């Protein structure tokens, strides 16, 4: 009897992984994450359970409650009222507008030596929500990696993956995607893709660096709390707005650049920006914004 139960259970889980269901686990993870964050930020009344160490007065005065779905696109400004005021002020004249223009120029007028251009690699610029993609034989391809692949395959030199032209071009892609109302649309449609996702997830939950902190410590349990004066943004909806103009950088930067900063916060030696580690991590991260509108570029402290 027991054996049959186990057998059916096994069968059950196998059929779960049947054709077309490779994203079943990821869907479940995303749903659970969204529910957790919406509960966490639902009301002042339950805040004591989720924010045991945050001063009560701060919970009373500086937090916005009742957050849902797309609200999370704002990162920590979704709940931090003071931060949101400053954000609104800076946004009156968004500092990334020049970057978007520069990116448009690069997209429309860069001619490679062989006569081709970015339009040959990316006929439609409204693609910010489509990346990363899992490509058989290549693994996870982030937008950053795709842009450099385009350059290299046309015998051009690859660009710096943190800032500069590459970030500008991504800003243009993001801004067109946003204008057209595109959503983050990450696809997991093979066993290998599901494995890459699981690898990224494992990285996210693993304690690393000499401080033994995981990304989840700060952006899941820690979301909404502060590391010194910095409010921690929730994983849900966290990366739909890249590239980001950071006041701390006085510059526009890619998601890879931002993650490198967090690795340093953890006391971790950093990974290469096009390593499998980084690409799989970004695959997982971006899936956790799936279905939300592309919101980039944006500004952050």
């Amino acid at each position, binding site marked *: 009897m027991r054996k049959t139960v186990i057998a059916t259970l096994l069968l059950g889980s196998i059929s779960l992984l049947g054709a077309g269901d490779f994203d079943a686990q990821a869907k479940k993870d995303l749903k659970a994450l969204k529910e957790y964050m919406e509960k966490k930020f639902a009301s002042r009344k339950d805040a004591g359970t989720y924010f045991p160490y945050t001063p009560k007065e701060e919970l009373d005065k500086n937090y916005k409650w009742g957050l849902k779905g797309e609200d999370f696109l704002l990162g920590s400004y979704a709940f931090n009222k003071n931060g949101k005021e400053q954000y609104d002020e800076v946004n009156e004249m968004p500092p990334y507008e020049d970057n978007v223009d520069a990116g448009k120029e690069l997209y429309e007028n860069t001619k490679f030596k062989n006569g081709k251009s970015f339009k040959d690699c990316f006929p439609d610029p409204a693609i910010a929500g489509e990346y990363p993609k899992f490509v058989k034989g290549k693994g996870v391809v982030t937008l950053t990696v795709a842009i450099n692949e385009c350059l290299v395959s046309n015998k051009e030199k690859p660009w710096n993956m943190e800032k500069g032209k590459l970030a500008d071009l991504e800003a243009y892609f993001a801004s067109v995607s946003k204008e057209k109302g595109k959503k983050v649309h990450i696809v997991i449609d093979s066993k290998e893709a599901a494995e890459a996702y699981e690898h990224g997830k494992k990285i996210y939950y693993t304690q690393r660096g000499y401080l*033994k902190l995981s990304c989840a410590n700060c952006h899941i349990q820690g979301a909404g709390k502060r590391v010194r004066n910095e409010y921690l943004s929730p994983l849900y909806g966290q990366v739909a707005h890249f590239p980001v103009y950071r006041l701390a950088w006085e510059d526009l930067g890619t998601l890879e650049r931002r993650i490198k900063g967090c690795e340093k916060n953890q006391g971790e030696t950093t990974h290469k920006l096009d390593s499998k580690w980084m690409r799989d991590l970004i695959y997982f991260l971006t899936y956790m914004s799936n279905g939300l509108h592309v919101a980039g570029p944006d500004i952050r402290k």
Partner: protein
Amino acid sequence: MKKLLIAALLAGTAATFAQAADDLVKEGEKIFNTKKLGNCFACHDANGKKINGPGSLGPKLQGLALWPEKALYDKVYDPYTTNPVSAMPPFGKNGVLSDKQIKAVVAYLKTIK
């Protein structure tokens, strides 16, 4: 005369002891508030102390004067011994802080009411 001398000597050592203990507390305070050292203020406020922008990931520390030194030492050395799911880094076990530095931090923690 002899008595006086002893008294003076005793007073002297008491003073040095007090001085040494004071220095230890100061060193601990510095470790607590320095990013490259303990960086404790990233997560903790401390009752009765002036901390510059303390975080809220960990509890506001209070009543630690009443904790046994060993309990404080263990907490900083490896918080998982008392809380296996702690979000606090194990400063001793990871070698971020030396035995001497943790003792200094403990001396400072003992001054938190």
